Protein backbone atom coordinates (compact mmCIF):
# COMPACT_ATOMS: atom_id res chain seq x y z
CA UNK A 1 0.00 0.00 0.00
CA UNK A 2 1.34 3.38 -0.96
CA UNK A 3 0.19 6.35 1.08
CA UNK A 4 -0.03 9.36 -1.19
CA UNK A 5 -0.29 12.88 0.08
CA UNK A 6 -3.99 13.60 0.33
CA UNK A 7 -5.57 16.99 0.51
CA UNK A 8 -5.88 18.11 4.08
CA UNK A 9 -8.97 16.68 5.71
CA UNK A 10 -11.10 19.13 7.62
CA UNK A 11 -11.25 18.80 11.37
CA UNK A 12 -13.29 21.08 13.58
CA UNK A 13 -12.84 22.19 17.18
CA UNK A 14 -14.72 19.16 18.53
CA UNK A 15 -12.39 16.83 16.60
CA UNK A 16 -9.45 18.72 18.01
CA UNK A 17 -10.74 18.27 21.55
CA UNK A 18 -11.08 14.54 20.93
CA UNK A 19 -7.53 14.43 19.54
CA UNK A 20 -6.18 16.30 22.56
CA UNK A 21 -8.01 13.99 24.96
CA UNK A 22 -6.73 10.80 23.30
CA UNK A 23 -3.26 11.56 21.93
CA UNK A 24 -1.70 10.50 25.23
CA UNK A 25 -3.54 7.18 25.04
CA UNK A 26 -6.97 5.58 25.22
CA UNK A 27 -8.42 5.04 28.74
CA UNK A 28 -8.05 1.49 30.03
CA UNK A 29 -11.66 1.08 31.07
CA UNK A 30 -14.34 -1.20 29.57
CA UNK A 31 -16.02 1.75 27.79
CA UNK A 32 -13.07 3.92 26.74
CA UNK A 33 -15.01 6.06 24.25
CA UNK A 34 -17.72 6.77 26.81
CA UNK A 35 -14.98 7.80 29.20
CA UNK A 36 -13.55 10.27 26.68
CA UNK A 37 -17.07 11.54 25.89
CA UNK A 38 -17.84 12.17 29.57
CA UNK A 39 -14.57 14.08 29.94
CA UNK A 40 -15.50 16.36 27.04
CA UNK A 41 -19.22 16.68 27.76
CA UNK A 42 -20.17 14.84 24.56
CA UNK A 43 -22.28 11.82 23.74
CA UNK A 44 -20.33 8.57 23.32
CA UNK A 45 -22.02 8.02 19.95
CA UNK A 46 -20.68 11.33 18.70
CA UNK A 47 -17.12 10.56 19.84
CA UNK A 48 -17.19 7.16 18.11
CA UNK A 49 -18.70 8.63 14.96
CA UNK A 50 -16.08 11.34 14.75
CA UNK A 51 -13.24 8.93 15.45
CA UNK A 52 -14.48 6.56 12.75
CA UNK A 53 -14.65 9.48 10.35
CA UNK A 54 -11.10 10.55 11.25
CA UNK A 55 -9.92 6.98 10.73
CA UNK A 56 -11.54 6.84 7.30
CA UNK A 57 -9.96 10.19 6.40
CA UNK A 58 -6.55 8.90 7.45
CA UNK A 59 -6.24 11.46 10.27
CA UNK A 60 -6.14 8.50 12.63
CA UNK A 61 -3.60 6.14 11.13
CA UNK A 62 -4.71 3.30 13.35
CA UNK A 63 -5.63 2.64 16.95
CA UNK A 64 -3.35 0.23 18.67
CA UNK A 65 -0.33 -0.58 20.76
CA UNK A 66 3.10 0.89 20.11
CA UNK A 67 5.72 -1.58 21.29
CA UNK A 68 8.89 -0.19 22.79
CA UNK A 69 11.41 -1.94 20.55
CA UNK A 70 14.22 -1.35 22.97
CA UNK A 71 12.40 -2.76 26.00
CA UNK A 72 11.32 -5.79 23.96
CA UNK A 73 14.94 -6.73 23.35
CA UNK A 74 15.40 -5.09 19.94
CA UNK A 75 18.41 -3.08 20.97
CA UNK A 76 20.00 -2.61 17.57
CA UNK A 77 17.74 -0.24 15.69
CA UNK A 78 19.51 1.20 12.67
CA UNK A 79 18.41 3.87 10.24
CA UNK A 80 19.51 2.51 6.88
CA UNK A 81 19.74 5.07 4.08
CA UNK A 82 20.04 4.21 0.40
CA UNK A 83 20.89 5.90 -2.87
CA UNK A 84 18.63 4.44 -5.54
CA UNK A 85 17.50 5.77 -8.95
CA UNK A 86 14.51 8.11 -8.51
CA UNK A 87 12.72 6.43 -11.39
CA UNK A 88 12.79 3.10 -9.53
CA UNK A 89 11.88 4.30 -6.06
CA UNK A 90 8.20 3.31 -6.23
CA UNK A 91 8.94 -0.33 -6.86
CA UNK A 92 11.94 -0.50 -4.55
CA UNK A 93 10.31 1.38 -1.67
CA UNK A 94 7.33 -0.96 -1.67
CA UNK A 95 9.57 -4.01 -1.79
CA UNK A 96 11.65 -2.82 1.17
CA UNK A 97 8.62 -1.58 3.14
CA UNK A 98 7.19 -5.09 2.97
CA UNK A 99 10.15 -6.69 4.78
CA UNK A 100 9.16 -7.80 8.27
CA UNK A 101 12.22 -6.23 9.92
CA UNK A 102 11.57 -2.78 8.41
CA UNK A 103 9.17 -0.58 10.37
CA UNK A 104 9.25 2.67 8.40
CA UNK A 105 10.25 3.22 4.81
CA UNK A 106 10.26 6.70 3.29
CA UNK A 107 11.53 8.62 0.29
CA UNK A 108 13.29 11.82 1.40
CA UNK A 109 15.19 14.52 -0.51
CA UNK A 110 18.94 14.27 -1.16
CA UNK A 111 21.25 17.11 -0.09
CA UNK A 112 24.13 16.84 -2.53
CA UNK A 113 27.04 16.66 -2.15
CA UNK A 114 26.75 15.94 1.61
CA UNK A 115 23.85 13.54 1.49
CA UNK A 116 23.21 11.36 -1.57
CA UNK A 117 20.52 9.14 -0.03
CA UNK A 118 16.87 9.23 -1.07
CA UNK A 119 15.41 6.13 0.61
CA UNK A 120 15.21 5.58 4.38
CA UNK A 121 14.33 2.28 6.07
CA UNK A 122 14.34 1.68 9.84
CA UNK A 123 15.76 -1.78 10.47
CA UNK A 124 15.15 -3.57 13.78
CA UNK A 125 17.27 -6.33 15.26
CA UNK A 126 18.37 -7.68 18.61
CA UNK A 127 21.82 -6.19 18.17
CA UNK A 128 23.94 -4.33 15.63
CA UNK A 129 25.22 -7.52 14.00
CA UNK A 130 21.67 -8.67 13.34
CA UNK A 131 20.78 -5.25 11.92
CA UNK A 132 23.84 -5.30 9.67
CA UNK A 133 22.91 -8.75 8.37
CA UNK A 134 19.41 -7.55 7.55
CA UNK A 135 20.81 -4.45 5.86
CA UNK A 136 22.87 -6.75 3.62
CA UNK A 137 19.64 -8.47 2.60
CA UNK A 138 18.26 -5.12 1.48
CA UNK A 139 21.43 -4.46 -0.56
CA UNK A 140 21.01 -7.83 -2.28
CA UNK A 141 17.34 -7.13 -2.91
CA UNK A 142 18.18 -3.80 -4.58
CA UNK A 143 20.49 -5.56 -7.03
CA UNK A 144 21.51 -3.35 -9.95
CA UNK A 145 19.61 -0.40 -8.47
CA UNK A 146 22.00 -0.25 -5.51
CA UNK A 147 24.24 2.83 -5.66
CA UNK A 148 25.35 3.12 -2.05
CA UNK A 149 24.14 3.02 1.53
CA UNK A 150 24.96 3.70 5.16
CA UNK A 151 23.48 2.60 8.50
CA UNK A 152 23.14 5.21 11.23
CA UNK A 153 22.78 3.86 14.73
CA UNK A 154 21.47 6.10 17.45
CA UNK A 155 23.95 6.56 20.27
CA UNK A 156 21.80 8.72 22.57
CA UNK A 157 18.22 9.93 22.91
CA UNK A 158 18.48 13.70 23.27
CA UNK A 159 14.74 14.36 23.53
CA UNK A 160 11.61 12.29 23.34
CA UNK A 161 8.26 13.92 23.97
CA UNK A 162 6.16 12.44 21.19
CA UNK A 163 3.86 14.45 18.99
CA UNK A 164 1.58 16.76 20.88
CA UNK A 165 -1.00 19.18 19.64
CA UNK A 166 -0.67 22.47 21.38
CA UNK A 167 -3.79 24.55 21.82
Amino acid at each position, binding site marked *: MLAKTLPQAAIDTTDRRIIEATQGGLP*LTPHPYHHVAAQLGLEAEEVMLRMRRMQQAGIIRRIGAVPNHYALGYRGNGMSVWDVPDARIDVLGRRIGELDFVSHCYQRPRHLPHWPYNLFAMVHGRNREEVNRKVLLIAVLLGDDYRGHEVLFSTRILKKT*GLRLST
Partner: protein
Amino acid sequence: MMDRLDRDIINTLQQGFPISELPYAEVAEKLDTSEEELLARLQCMLDDGLLSRFGPMYHAERMGGGLTLAAMSIPEEAFEQVCQQVNRHPEVAHNYQRDHKLNMWFVLATETPDDIVRVIAEIEKESGYPVYNMPKEREFFIGLKFEV
Protein backbone atom coordinates in the same frame (compact mmCIF):
# COMPACT_ATOMS: atom_id res chain seq x y z
CA MET B 1 8.71 -11.40 31.91
CA MET B 2 6.25 -11.61 29.07
CA ASP B 3 4.27 -14.77 28.55
CA ARG B 4 2.34 -16.12 25.58
CA LEU B 5 -0.72 -13.94 26.28
CA ASP B 6 1.34 -10.74 26.50
CA ARG B 7 2.90 -11.54 23.11
CA ASP B 8 -0.49 -12.30 21.58
CA ILE B 9 -1.82 -9.01 22.93
CA ILE B 10 1.07 -7.00 21.44
CA ASN B 11 0.86 -8.75 18.08
CA THR B 12 -2.93 -8.45 17.88
CA LEU B 13 -3.11 -4.83 18.98
CA GLN B 14 -0.63 -3.71 16.34
CA GLN B 15 -3.27 -4.58 13.78
CA GLY B 16 -5.91 -2.22 15.05
CA PHE B 17 -8.57 -1.74 17.67
CA PRO B 18 -12.33 -1.39 17.33
CA ILE B 19 -14.28 1.82 17.81
CA SER B 20 -17.29 0.37 19.62
CA GLU B 21 -19.17 0.17 22.91
CA LEU B 22 -16.99 -2.53 24.47
CA PRO B 23 -13.82 -2.70 22.39
CA TYR B 24 -11.65 -4.41 25.01
CA ALA B 25 -14.25 -7.14 25.47
CA GLU B 26 -14.27 -7.71 21.69
CA VAL B 27 -10.51 -8.03 21.51
CA ALA B 28 -10.41 -10.21 24.64
CA GLU B 29 -12.80 -12.66 23.04
CA LYS B 30 -10.52 -12.99 20.00
CA LEU B 31 -7.57 -13.59 22.32
CA ASP B 32 -9.56 -16.15 24.30
CA THR B 33 -9.19 -14.21 27.53
CA SER B 34 -11.36 -11.90 29.64
CA GLU B 35 -11.82 -8.16 29.32
CA GLU B 36 -10.52 -7.77 32.86
CA GLU B 37 -7.37 -9.75 32.14
CA LEU B 38 -6.68 -7.81 28.92
CA LEU B 39 -7.04 -4.45 30.69
CA ALA B 40 -4.76 -5.59 33.53
CA ARG B 41 -2.11 -6.88 31.09
CA LEU B 42 -2.17 -3.66 29.07
CA GLN B 43 -1.80 -1.54 32.18
CA CYS B 44 1.08 -3.70 33.31
CA MET B 45 2.92 -3.54 29.97
CA LEU B 46 2.50 0.23 29.85
CA ASP B 47 3.78 0.57 33.43
CA ASP B 48 6.78 -1.63 32.62
CA GLY B 49 7.55 0.30 29.44
CA LEU B 50 7.12 -2.70 27.10
CA LEU B 51 4.52 -0.62 25.31
CA SER B 52 5.31 3.03 24.80
CA ARG B 53 1.64 3.86 24.32
CA PHE B 54 -1.78 2.49 23.53
CA GLY B 55 -4.37 4.49 21.63
CA PRO B 56 -5.01 6.33 18.38
CA MET B 57 -2.02 7.28 16.22
CA TYR B 58 -2.71 10.63 14.56
CA HIS B 59 -1.35 11.67 11.21
CA ALA B 60 0.11 15.16 11.80
CA GLU B 61 0.13 16.27 8.17
CA ARG B 62 -3.50 15.33 7.68
CA MET B 63 -4.50 17.46 10.65
CA GLY B 64 -3.08 20.43 8.81
CA GLY B 65 0.23 20.50 10.66
CA GLY B 66 3.80 20.22 9.46
CA LEU B 67 6.12 17.28 10.07
CA THR B 68 9.70 16.74 9.02
CA LEU B 69 12.95 15.01 9.82
CA ALA B 70 15.96 17.31 10.06
CA ALA B 71 19.67 16.66 10.50
CA MET B 72 22.69 18.70 11.57
CA SER B 73 26.43 18.17 11.64
CA ILE B 74 27.74 19.54 14.94
CA PRO B 75 31.36 19.43 16.13
CA GLU B 76 31.81 17.63 19.43
CA GLU B 77 32.76 20.73 21.40
CA ALA B 78 29.55 22.53 20.40
CA PHE B 79 27.27 19.53 20.62
CA GLU B 80 25.77 20.05 24.09
CA GLN B 81 25.09 23.72 23.50
CA VAL B 82 23.42 23.16 20.13
CA CYS B 83 21.46 20.28 21.64
CA GLN B 84 20.00 22.67 24.21
CA GLN B 85 19.24 25.28 21.56
CA VAL B 86 17.43 22.70 19.43
CA ASN B 87 15.55 20.98 22.27
CA ARG B 88 14.30 24.28 23.64
CA HIS B 89 11.89 24.48 20.70
CA PRO B 90 8.62 22.81 21.68
CA GLU B 91 8.18 21.77 18.01
CA VAL B 92 11.11 19.33 18.39
CA ALA B 93 9.34 16.04 19.17
CA HIS B 94 12.33 13.70 19.29
CA ASN B 95 16.01 14.20 18.88
CA TYR B 96 18.65 11.48 18.50
CA GLN B 97 22.41 11.52 18.41
CA ARG B 98 23.68 9.22 15.63
CA ASP B 99 27.12 7.93 14.74
CA HIS B 100 27.63 9.83 11.50
CA LYS B 101 29.02 13.16 10.33
CA LEU B 102 25.37 14.25 10.47
CA ASN B 103 25.21 13.51 14.17
CA MET B 104 21.99 15.18 15.30
CA TRP B 105 18.61 14.03 13.94
CA PHE B 106 15.33 15.48 15.09
CA VAL B 107 11.66 15.39 14.18
CA LEU B 108 9.79 18.69 13.94
CA ALA B 109 6.01 18.71 14.39
CA THR B 110 4.35 22.09 13.89
CA GLU B 111 0.86 23.58 13.84
CA THR B 112 1.10 24.61 10.18
CA PRO B 113 3.43 23.55 7.33
CA ASP B 114 4.89 27.08 7.16
CA ASP B 115 6.11 26.81 10.76
CA ILE B 116 8.67 24.18 9.67
CA VAL B 117 10.58 26.76 7.65
CA ARG B 118 10.37 29.27 10.51
CA VAL B 119 11.66 26.87 13.19
CA ILE B 120 14.51 25.67 10.94
CA ALA B 121 15.52 29.28 10.26
CA GLU B 122 15.48 30.00 14.01
CA ILE B 123 17.65 26.98 14.80
CA GLU B 124 20.15 27.91 12.07
CA LYS B 125 20.35 31.46 13.37
CA GLU B 126 20.73 30.45 17.03
CA SER B 127 23.28 27.72 16.43
CA GLY B 128 25.16 29.02 13.40
CA TYR B 129 25.02 25.58 11.74
CA PRO B 130 22.97 24.53 8.71
CA VAL B 131 19.91 22.32 9.13
CA TYR B 132 19.24 19.72 6.44
CA ASN B 133 15.51 19.42 5.98
CA MET B 134 14.40 15.93 4.94
CA PRO B 135 10.60 15.85 4.83
CA LYS B 136 9.13 12.58 3.68
CA GLU B 137 8.16 12.76 0.04
CA ARG B 138 6.56 9.36 -0.08
CA GLU B 139 5.74 6.71 2.45
CA PHE B 140 5.95 3.01 1.79
CA PHE B 141 3.89 1.85 4.71
CA ILE B 142 2.65 -1.69 4.92
CA GLY B 143 1.53 -1.51 8.52
CA LEU B 144 3.43 -2.51 11.60
CA LYS B 145 4.02 -6.21 11.78
CA PHE B 146 6.44 -6.43 14.58
CA GLU B 147 6.19 -10.01 15.82
CA VAL B 148 7.28 -10.54 19.41
